[in-house]
């Protein structure tokens, strides 16, 4: 067997007060793709950074063996590490908008790697940059090289970031959440690009929170939780026959089409021919839909498709240029993607709920009792009452947001990307909570998301938006199994971890939820 590009055994990384990584071992061979999967705080990124000696001054790193191309790196000084970084190991971070220096043209960023390692004479740099951009599939490379990150689309930016990482032809490319901030179709493109690199013999270390993303690419998968590798094995085995309960729960948490049986009530929202233009750009262009009590209408689309503008029009936060919305706004509440920013930072949970109850007309003496009741409804303990949202976990915050939305006893809740910011397991819990509440209280949801799986899981009807227009709408199963519009087909094809097969939903690369029991229950507190 060939020498691994990197090899580490029994890696421990600790920061003052926290043991971030405990006893991780991994090796990446040329042409191999190893994926490390885990939720936030699992230690996967720290593991990746320790392979570059970039854990920071405060970290204490120990390892049984730490070797780069067979050379012991455990005693490397800063100077030796620098010669490894970018030349032997390239590193790609998520979200190129912030991972590329916003104040420099992308061409300079790419050339920087070459310059630092003196990999090319100065006069050859512009040519090499263009070659690299071409290699990662950037059209018009000469033009793009002179542009700034904010002038490029998300996909091109991510390609440029990859180009800067592979500029010196590193033996190993570490990709840390390379597609997380991207739209699903772009994500598919980037994954294809990485697959090409792998076919070209590049060793890949893929870091992700999303099993689905790594499913196609990885030869070997490590699942991490709380700094420990809980499962390690060939991809097929980890995905097909997971041994550890946590791996199973991760797989189970991947949203699957639900088998919904809801009874449509009267119409609670009727939008007709909505048009909204911002400074000459049409954000929403003739969107019409209807939502009935007790049902969920999913609105899907990529960024810039007009999802959020539609929601704001429905809520009356914006006035439509044309068209109309019939809705009883007193009976409508909202849940946002980022619950934290939707809370006044000075307010405790009690005051947040108190205010909502006040709006709903609950008399002062009853509010405390109602607040505790609401918290119970969303699976929280009354001990959170006096805490500030800042001190709560992401899942708890979204539960508080749901409790707040429930306080005035609404009939409709507009959910704007309510689970996008959450880890997969938490995401599943919140979705379950929402569907449970719907059944219990007969709520109607206008559910906005870019995530097709999530929408498929919770919706009765779907509205697919592209560039402000509704390209397709109708029954959820109808659309997900037999999409009529090419764009809808493209979207579905781009979903990682397997294709939505138009004919046979059972032929998926990943096991569906039917095969696994739900292991995760809503947590309390």
């Amino acid at each position: 067997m060939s020498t691994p590009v990197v090899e580490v055994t029994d890696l421990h990384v600790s920061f003052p007060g926290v043991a971030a990584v405990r006893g991780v071992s991994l090796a990446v061979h040329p042409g191999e793709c190893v994926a490390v999967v885990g939720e936030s705080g699992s230690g996967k990124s720290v593991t990746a950074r320790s392979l570059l000696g970039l854990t920071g001054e405060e970290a204490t790193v120990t390892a049984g063996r730490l070797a780069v191309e067979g050379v012991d790196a455990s005693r490397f000084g800063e100077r030796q590490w620098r010669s490894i970084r970018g030349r032997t190991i390239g590193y790609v971070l998520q979200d190129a908008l912030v991972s590329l220096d916003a104040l420099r043209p992308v061409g300079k960023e790419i050339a920087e790697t070459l310059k630092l390692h003196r990999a090319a004479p100065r006069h050859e740099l512009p040519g090499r940059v263009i070659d690299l951009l071409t290699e990662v599939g950037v059209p018009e490379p000469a033009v793009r090289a002179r542009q700034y990150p904010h002038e490029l689309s998300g996909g091109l930016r991510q390609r440029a970031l990859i180009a800067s990482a592979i500029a010196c032809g590193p033996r190993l490319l570490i990709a840390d959440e390379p597609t997380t901030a991207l739209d699903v179709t772009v994500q598919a493109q980037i994954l294809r690009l990485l697959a090409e690199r792998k076919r070209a013999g590049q060793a890949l270390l893929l870091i992700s929170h999303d099993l689905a993303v790594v499913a196609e690419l990885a030869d070997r998968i490590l699942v991490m939780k709380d700094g420990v590798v809980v499962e390690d094995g060939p991809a097929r085995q980890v995905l097909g026959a997971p041994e550890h309960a946590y791996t199973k729960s991760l797989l189970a948490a991947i949203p699957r089409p639900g088998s919904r049986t809801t009874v449509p009530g009267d119409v609670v929202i009727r939008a007709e021919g909505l048009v909204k233009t911002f400074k000459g750009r049409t954000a929403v262009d003739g969107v019409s839909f209807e939502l009935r009590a007790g049902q969920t209408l999913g609105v899907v689309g990529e960024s810039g498709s007009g999802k959020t503008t539609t929601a704001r029009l429905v809520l009356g936060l914006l006035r439509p240029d044309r068209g109309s919305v019939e809705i009883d706004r007193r009976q409508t509440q909202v849940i946002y993607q980022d619950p934290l920013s939707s809370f006044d930072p000075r307010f405790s949970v009690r005051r947040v709920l108190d205010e909502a109850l006040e709006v709903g007309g609950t008399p002062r003496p009853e509010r405390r009792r109602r607040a505790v009741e609401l918290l119970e409804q969303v699976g929280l303990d009354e001990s959170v009452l006096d805490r500030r949202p800042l001190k709560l976990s992401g899942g708890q915050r979204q539960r508080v947001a749901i409790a707040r939305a429930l306080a005035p006893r609404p009939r409709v809740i507009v959910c704007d990307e309510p689970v996008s910011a959450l880890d997969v397991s938490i995401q599943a819990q919140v979705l379950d909570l929402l569907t449970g509440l719907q059944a219990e209280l007969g709520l109607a949801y206008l559910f906005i998301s870019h995530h097709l799986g999530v929408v498929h899981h919770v919706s009765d009807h779907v509205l697919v938006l592209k560039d402000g227009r509704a390209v397709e709408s109708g029954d959820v199963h109808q659309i997900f199994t037999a999409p009529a519009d090419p764009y809808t087909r493209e979207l579905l094809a781009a979903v990682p971890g397997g294709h939505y097969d138009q004919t046979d939903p059972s032929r998926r690369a990943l096991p569906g939820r039917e095969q696994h029991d739900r292991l995760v229950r809503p947590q309390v507190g």
Partner: protein
Amino acid sequence: MAFLALITLAALAPSLLTGGVTPDAADALAALQGPSADHLLGTDANGRDVFARIVYGAAPSLLAGLGATALAVVVGTALGLLAALGGRVVDEIVTRLIEIVLSLPTLLLALLVITVTGPGTVNVIFAIALYTAPGYARLVRAQTMVIRNAGFVEAAVSLGLGRGRIITRHVLPNAFEPLAVLATIEVGTALVAAASLSYLGLGPQPPAPEWGAMLSAGRDYFSVAWWIAVFPGVAITLTVLSVTVVGRRLQRRIA
């Protein structure tokens, strides 16, 4: 912190600290004596006890810093809110007004104010407030505009809260927090500014034991009686230092 407590005590009940020595007991026979058991920090050219004067000077000195800052905060907040919430025209007028005041150098502005109103503590407060207020106004305006678009304000709107309640319950308190931090830090700056005005002969009138005036008067005696100027200087520096440290802590707690 302990120093702040001491200063507060000095400002509120100076006689407790000096044991009955008064700040204006001039005694030409005891002039310019160095620090000793009788006069802890020495005496000035009039034979007055420097320690007593520093202690009694705490109130007027702090008054200048606090008063100017308070006035500036009030005026600045009012203007900032007016600009942010009063509509385009009002915003434009207030913004220009702020720019006009900012376009005059601080000291010239103070000179103008004091030429118009005459020297004295109250006028110094007024002068310093005038040139610090635009800073607060800008901050409040910017802050209010940010908060107006913050998620929690939108959440409050969708919740169905009225405009007035949103402003008083959400916008104002949140806009005020960074302002409070800036203000604490600026108290020190105002103190230093008051001292500088005293140096130019525009500060409080004798025999008021104001630190800036003492520092300024003491420089004439620096080579023969360093204590007259050094101790008020130390008092100013320590006060500014402790006020700023408190401000910084406040800032960290909020951030």
